[in-house]
C-alpha cells in the first residue's frame, strides 16, 4: 500500500518560484506577524504571493489578515481564496474557530493532504507560517519541500535565542537554506546593543535586521495599511528590498 499524495507534492509546487518558511523554534516571537507582513509587503512590491499557515492547532495569520470565512472554490483541487490579493490557505477554512486537537501524526497527515490538493498556481513566493517547536511540521517541510528557505525570527531574550539556536543547528546540519535572522520586539533599553546580531554572525548566519517593539502593532492586527507602517512593516520592506 502506498500513500499517493506524497508523490504529487512537487508537481503542485512546480510553478512556485520560491518557498520561504518563517520559523523559530520558539513561540510568541512574532513568526505569524512577520510571515503575514512579509506576504503583504511582497504583494505590494508586485509579486504573486501565497501564504500558508502551518500552525494548525494555533493559527494566527487569518486574524492578522482579517480573512473572512468563505466557501472554498474547487478547480482540479482546492483554490486558495484571495485575501488582500494573497492566495491564502489555513486549516481555519475547515475547522473554523473551533479547537483542532491534533496529535503530530494528524498534523502531518493534514499537511500532506493540503499539499496534495491545493492548487497554488503561479507564485513568485509562497510564505509559510511555521509552528513553534521542532516537530512534525518542520520535519515534514524538510522532507517534502526540501528547497524551502528559512527566515528565522527571534526576540532579544536569552530564552528565545537558546531555543532558536537549536533549530538553527538542526537546519545547518541538514544543509537547509537559511536566509537569515530577524530580531523582533527589540526593547531599545534592555539588551546590550547588537548582541543578537553578533551571535547570529557567530552562527554563520546573516543578520537581516531588528524590529522594535511597537505598541501600535496590536491595533494594526487585521488592518493591512496600519500593519505596513508598524516597525514590522518598515523593517520587512527593507529586508525584502535588500535580501530577497
Amino acid at each position, binding site marked *: 500500500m502506498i500513500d*499517493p499524495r506524497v*508523490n504529487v507534492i512537487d508537481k503542485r509546487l512546480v510553478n512556485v518560484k520560491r518557498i520561504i518558511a518563517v520559523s523559530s523554534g520558539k513561540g510568541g516571537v512574532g513568526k505569524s506577524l512577520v510571515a503575514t507582513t512579509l506576504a503583504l509587503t511582497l504583494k505590494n512590491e508586485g509579486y504573486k504571493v501565497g501564504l500558508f499557515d502551518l500552525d494548525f492547532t494555533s493559527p494566527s495569520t487569518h486574524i492578522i489578515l482579517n480573512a473572512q470565512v468563505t466557501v472554498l472554490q474547487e478547480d*482540479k483541487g482546492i483554490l486558495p481564496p484571495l485575501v488582500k490579493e494573497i492566495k491564502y490557505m489555513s486549516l481555519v477554512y475547515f*475547522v473554523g474557530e473551533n*479547537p483542532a486537537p*491534533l496529535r503530530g501524526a*494528524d498534523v502531518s*497527515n493534514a499537511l500532506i493532504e493540503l499539499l496534495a*490538493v491545493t492548487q497554488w498556481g503561479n507564485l513568485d513566493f509562497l510564505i509559510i507560517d511555521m509552528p513553534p517547536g521542532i516537530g512534525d511540521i518542520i520535519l515534514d517541510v524538510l522532507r517534502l519541500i526540501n528547497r524551502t528557505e528559512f527566515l528565522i525570527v527571534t526576540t532579544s531574550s536569552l530564552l528565545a535565542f537558546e531555543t532558536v539556536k537549536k533549530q538553527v543547528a538542526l537546519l545547518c546540519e541538514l544543509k537547509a537554506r537559511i536566509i537569515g535572522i530577524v530580531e523582533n520586539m527589540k526593547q531599545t533599553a534592555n539588551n546590550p546593543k547588537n548582541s543578537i546580531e553578533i551571535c547570529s554572525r557567530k552562527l554563520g548566519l546573516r543578520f537581516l535586521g531588528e524590529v522594535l517593539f511597537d505598541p501600535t502593532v496590536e491595533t494594526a492586527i487585521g488592518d493591512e495599511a496600519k500593519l505596513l507602517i508598524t516597525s514590522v512593516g518598515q523593517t520587512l520592506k527593507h529586508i525584502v528590498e535588500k535580501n530577497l
Partner: protein
Amino acid sequence: MHEWALADAILTAAAQIAEKEQLREVTQVTIRMGELQDVEPKILKFALNEIKSNLFKNAKFRFLKVKTELKCRVCGTSWQLKKESLDVTTVEAIHFVPEAAHTFIKCPKCISPDFEIASGRGIWLDNIQGVK
C-alpha cells in the same frame, strides 16, 4: 472538483511504480477509499479517466471501500462512524481534510476528541498490475 487532485496523485504514484517495475502498460489500479473522506467513486473514476496518460489507456480502476473505524485513546472505545449523523458543512470539511474529524467528532462514550482513525481515513493506492 477536488477529486481531480487526488486522481492526479494516484496516477502520478502509479506511473512512478510502473516505471520502477518497468511496466509497458498498466492493466489494473486498485484504490482503497476510506469512508471517512467520503470520496464518490464515480467522480474519482471520471477524473482518473479524464487525465490518465497513455500508460493507463486500458487500465481498469478498482475501488475498495474501507469502513471508518475510530478508536478512543482515552477510554478504548472503538466505533464505526455513521456519516448520516454529521451535518453538511462537517462532511465537507472532513472530505477536504479528514483530520477535521478531531474537531467535529467525539468519542461516543467519553466525548474525547483524542481518537485514532484506525482505518478508513482516505485514499490509498493498494496495488497496480501491468505488462512488461
